[in-house]
């Protein structure tokens, strides 16, 4: 019977909110807006590249030769300068004045001398920047052409043989430990940033849904429903049902966002890789078109998204959300039970959420220096752990610390829920004679009965 009563309370809280138009709209729109933002970033990166005609001034004659048939300078390594729709090269061994090459329709001029092979530096002269993407391509093409020149001049290998022997080593960071267990380390700033993004989302969800609990309790007091409810359900059960019901709404939203975001991203990935997205085909003819993940990896922002261990982060977020929500949700409900209006409640909630806000601000600092001692302590402390531990999970945290933090959080949440149930009973049944802190103080003086 008790279970079904709490179930009824949870069901009401869930149904009345999940089937609201505003909730459905926010739940359906957010993932598409998020993926849309990523898509826009990718498309802007890929799609806004302008057409560039580049004149390469090869004064030392390192990478060009005179083509007898055409009388033009052509690259010694034609494959190093693939044909592209938006990037075209011409070569010269003269030094034209800026006004001359611009009149001839070139958008940029590349200059270098003999020292280029030693100091690896040249100049890109332009009036309007050709863009980061084009600059990277010019650098890559010229580097290969220089490499080609050096191979031919300094070794006995031919270019094809050199290409086969060429070796690029990729070093993956590993963090050493006394126990000899090496964990994937390094890249901590990016990982910390990822963790911080999750903790920021958690912070927002806790604040928003805590506010909803407050509003709901105040509403039940002001519309006089609470007395009928308390007659049927114990205040502690009502509080639990309310907090869990509202938490279920938040979890529904988080799960819906995760599923819809995955679907939306997969859809976009399919469209991009199939060339259906504007900008996706901006590659050299003859080159294999880059897929979405490759393109994202080239962009500093989207690269971060690929570095996320989504499964670990989503599970951790859900666990810390549940614990943090039970803890803060109960406190919000107690505040709601003692006030006469939502405005009065907001004033009281502020000091209660200070630890959470402190954790959020501290998290920004900790992101850059995740090894500081206070970071560990705060990740165990239940009032701050929901926010801080998520950053540590992203950076890498020993299992026992994670377990300890979760245990402390849930034990504290259970204790707070128990105390909150009693304070809630006192609050919701009190008349209009006292409210807010005065009412809470009255309850404490009455030995918390």
């Amino acid at each position, binding site marked *: 019977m008790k279970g079904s009563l709490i179930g*009824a309370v949870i069901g009401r809280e869930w149904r009345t909110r999940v089937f609201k138009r505003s909730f459905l709209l926010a739940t359906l729109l957010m993932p598409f807006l998020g993926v849309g933002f990523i898509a826009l970033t990718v498309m802007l990166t890929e799609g806004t590249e302008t057409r560039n005609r580049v004149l390469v001034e090869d004064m030392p004659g390192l990478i060009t030769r005179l083509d007898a048939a055409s009388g033009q300078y052509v690259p010694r390594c034609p494959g190093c300068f693939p044909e592209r729709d938006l990037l075209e090269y011409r070569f010269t061994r003269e030094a034209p004045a800026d006004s001359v090459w611009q009149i001839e329709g070139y958008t940029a001029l590349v200059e270098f001398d003999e020292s280029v092979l030693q100091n690896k530096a040249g100049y890109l002269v332009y009036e309007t920047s050709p863009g980061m993407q084009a600059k990277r391509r010019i650098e890559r093409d010229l580097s290969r052409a220089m490499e080609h020149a050096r191979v031919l001049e300094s070794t006995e290998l031919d270019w094809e043989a050199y290409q086969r022997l060429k070796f690029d080593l990729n070093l993956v960071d590993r963090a050493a430990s006394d126990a000899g267990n090496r964990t994937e380390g390094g890249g901590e700033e990016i990982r910390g940033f990822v963790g911080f993004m999750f903790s920021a989302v958690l912070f927002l969800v806790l604040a928003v849904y805590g506010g909803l609990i407050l509003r709901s309790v105040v509403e039940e007091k002001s*519309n006089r429903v609470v007395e009928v409810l308390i007659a049927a359900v114990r205040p502690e059960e009502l509080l639990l049902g309310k907090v869990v019901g509202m938490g279920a709404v938040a979890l529904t939203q988080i799960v819906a966002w995760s599923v819809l975001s995955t679907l939306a991203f997969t859809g976009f990935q399919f469209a991009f890789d199939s060339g259906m997205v504007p900008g996706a085909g901006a590659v050299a003819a003859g080159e294999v078109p880059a897929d979405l993940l490759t393109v994202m990896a080239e962009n500093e922002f989207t690269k971060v998204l690929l570095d996320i261990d989504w499964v670990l982060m989503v599970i951790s977020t859900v666990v810390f959300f549940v614990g943090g929500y039970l803890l803060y949700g109960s406190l919000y409900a107690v505040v709601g039970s003692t006030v006469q209006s939502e405005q009065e409640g907001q004033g009281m909630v502020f000091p209660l959420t200070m630890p959470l806000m402190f954790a959020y601000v501290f998290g920004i600092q900790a992101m850059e220096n995740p090894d500081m001692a206070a970071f560990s302590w705060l990740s165990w402390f239940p009032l701050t752990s929901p926010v801080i531990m998520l950053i540590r999970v992203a950076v890498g945290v020993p299992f026992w610390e994670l377990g300890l933090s979760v245990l402390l959080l849930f034990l504290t949440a259970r204790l707070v829920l128990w105390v909150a149930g009693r304070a809630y009973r006192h609050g919701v049944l009190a008349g209009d004679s006292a409210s807010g802190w005065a009412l809470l103080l009255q309850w404490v003086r009455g030995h918390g009965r």
Partner: protein
Amino acid sequence: MTHALRISGLRKSFGEQQVLDGVGFDVPKGAILGLLGPNGAGKSTLIRSIMGIVEPDGGTIELDGTPWSREAVRRIGYLPEERGLYRDMKVGEQAVYFARLKGMDRPEAVTALKAWFERLEVDGWWDKKVSDISKGMAQKIQFICTVVHQPSLLILDEPLSGFDPINARRIVDVVRSLAESGTTILLSTHDMPSVERLCDRVVLLDQGNIVLAGEADALRESGWSGEQEVVFRGNDIAFTNALGTLAHLDGIEPDVAEGTRRAAIRLRNPEQPGQVLQALGQAVDILEFVKVRPTMESLFIQAVQSGAATTEPAS
């Protein structure tokens, strides 16, 4: 005899203020008991104690012959004085929610609610939002939510407030029919006419104590001190002379019918009204000679003002 509700020695204080000071009474099964008292007398605290909303400092409460338990409370139908509904919920959905809190499952609740909606003529409002219905309509919905689980004990705190006279009469009829079918009813109200119409027993609380309790008819009878109303045709002086020392004349005025007079008298010896009737009959033409028992309102005022405890055995 098993009582639907038995309260003994109930005490409750809030800080220095003693709100209930050893209250005790019984409500037999099937009775309609009026719980009366001025504001602040302790009625709401008493009801909240029965409902388990307030924890008493002392005393006992028995429900249906068994000690108080949360499970037994759930079988009570409770309509608090300060009541409301969720404005954003649909009427039917909300009624089902309250029925489920009383232990009904959804299909059972829907069937019972549909029958009650039809009975109180609100069946067209099932899918409407509460914010779209009138106050009177909302009152009906609250009443339905209170009785839908067929409680054996019904506690109604000011059930008629907010109703127009027609709907108030309809609710009174429903309450009466519930009582006839065996439901015990505890009615807390300031509306004395409805107490006279409905209640067969009353308990009057003042400052946390019972100052008057017993069967309504017996209390009114015991409160009678010789008041009579006489309608006659004849001379006022002859009427007054005939009264002599047998009764005191409180007033005399024309009655509705032409040539008739209506007099209010108080018998000096309430045991012998026949003696007065005989004396008056010799002087004027008596058309009516009616015993005027005190109203519940006058008993209420008298008991509260005197503060004297007049308590009959409650059962």
